[in-house]
């Protein structure tokens, strides 16, 4: 494999980028589409005090849940933690701070961070204290909105089906979920991919994430956890 952009690397090399107290954004939805080798690598390296940003906290042994249930995070920003009872217990015990955002607003906050916007206006959850508390409001055309701030992270990790040597990505079915927006929102973005193909092998019309947003590519061995439905 050629490596003309120097993006193709190894898990060992990218693990240097993870450190205690960092903000880490992850792709995936209920563990589907979360990068298994990167999560295991971060776990084995023993990185602690993480602030995690992503749709949910997975299941205790699935996806990002592996890090959460082993108490590697001090804070998560997510839309729900319902599928990971350990996350709920840690929150209850005061060991995990949880900031909840409505699911689509969380996605949009990540997208905003990924496309260089500071914030946007939303009318979701205006009458809900958990959503609206402490958020500034803005009036536009006589209607009140909440100001929802963008989210970014030091490192974003995503899982894709295929990449070319530039890091152009395509995903697999519903495993796309939050990956394309998370891929844009990291200061550094690492994609774990099932297959790396030569430049020109992907149909340009079908690329979902332009390689512009991707800094490193590492090969994946696929999912190594047992799904809840199995």
């Amino acid at each position, binding site marked *: 494999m050629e490596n003309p952009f120097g993006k193709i690397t190894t898990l060992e090399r990218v693990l240097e980028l993870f450190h205690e107290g960092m903000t880490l954004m992850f792709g995936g*939805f*209920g*563990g*589907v*589409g979360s990068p298994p080798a990167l999560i295991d690598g971060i776990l084995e390296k023993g990185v602690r005090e993480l602030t995690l940003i992503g*749709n*949910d906290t997975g*299941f205790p042994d699935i996806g990002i849940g592996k890090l959460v249930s082993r108490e590697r995070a001090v804070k998560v920003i*997510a*839309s*729900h*933690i*319902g*599928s990971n009872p350990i996350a*709920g*217990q840690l*929150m*209850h015990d005061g060991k995990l701070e*949880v900031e*909840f955002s*409505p*699911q*689509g*607003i969380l*996605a*949009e906050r*990540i*997208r905003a961070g990924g496309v260089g916007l500071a914030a946007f206006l939303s*009318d*979701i*959850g205006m*009458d*809900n204290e*958990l*959503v609206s508390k402490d958020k500034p409001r803005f009036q536009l055309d006589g209607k009140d909105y909440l100001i929802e701030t963008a989210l970014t992270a030091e490192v974003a990790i995503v899982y894709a*089906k295929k990449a070319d040597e530039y890091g152009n990505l395509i*995903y*697999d*079915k*519903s*495993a*796309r*979920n*939050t*990956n*394309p*927006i998370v891929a844009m929102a990291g200061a550094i973005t690492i994609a774990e991919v099932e297959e790396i193909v030569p430049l020109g092998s992907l149909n340009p019309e079908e690329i*979902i994430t332009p390689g512009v947003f991707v800094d490193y590519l590492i090969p994946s061995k696929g*999912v190594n956890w047992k*799904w*809840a*439905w199995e």
Partner: protein
Amino acid sequence: MGMGVDSRSQMAKRAAEEIQSGMVVNLGIGIPSLVPNHLSAETMVMFHAENGITGMGPSPAKGEEDENLCNAGGFPVTLNSGGSYCDSSIAFGMIRKGRVDITILGSLQVSQNGDLANWIVPGKKVPGMGGAMELAQKAKKVIVVMNHCDKHGNPKIVTSCSLPLTSSSCVNLIVTDLAVFQVTGEGLLLTELFAPFNVEDVINKTGCEFKISQNVRSIPY
């Protein structure tokens, strides 16, 4: 009060009557997930999932599951002809833009003015709202399908919700194992009854006042 498989199926069948060809529909977990069983093959519906599927099909046969094709609850599904994938921000864009015609969901309580309380179970840890707020607030029509009373026999249809609200004044139609109500600008209107229940039964098991339609339909199943 019937809470068995039959009443769950009856409620799902009644909710399915609201769905017309060409609609985009998002289904919650539980009874709403039974709704597709009651649609005719001619009804062309695009089922929407928050993780980024439009045109979701039924669960695959055992052994045919694809770990990368799951619904928002993380369970394997299939894709119908004409279906597509998108990222989650676009899936929610469809909801906020008003492109989802109907959402059918369960609830813990609904008030007489259509307030929905379905995201915090009393005594349980707060799990987060997921996508419930956007769906409740922005789907064109919000249908709640739930048992008329909770397991202690307390009415779930109330004057004012005692549980934290998911979204206020958002429910359009309530289908229970006893009856169907429309939520109107002047409160609830009883429009239909499931056999063998009568208006008196519904009054006794409902925690608020409601109007009664001049032509209450007796649901024939």
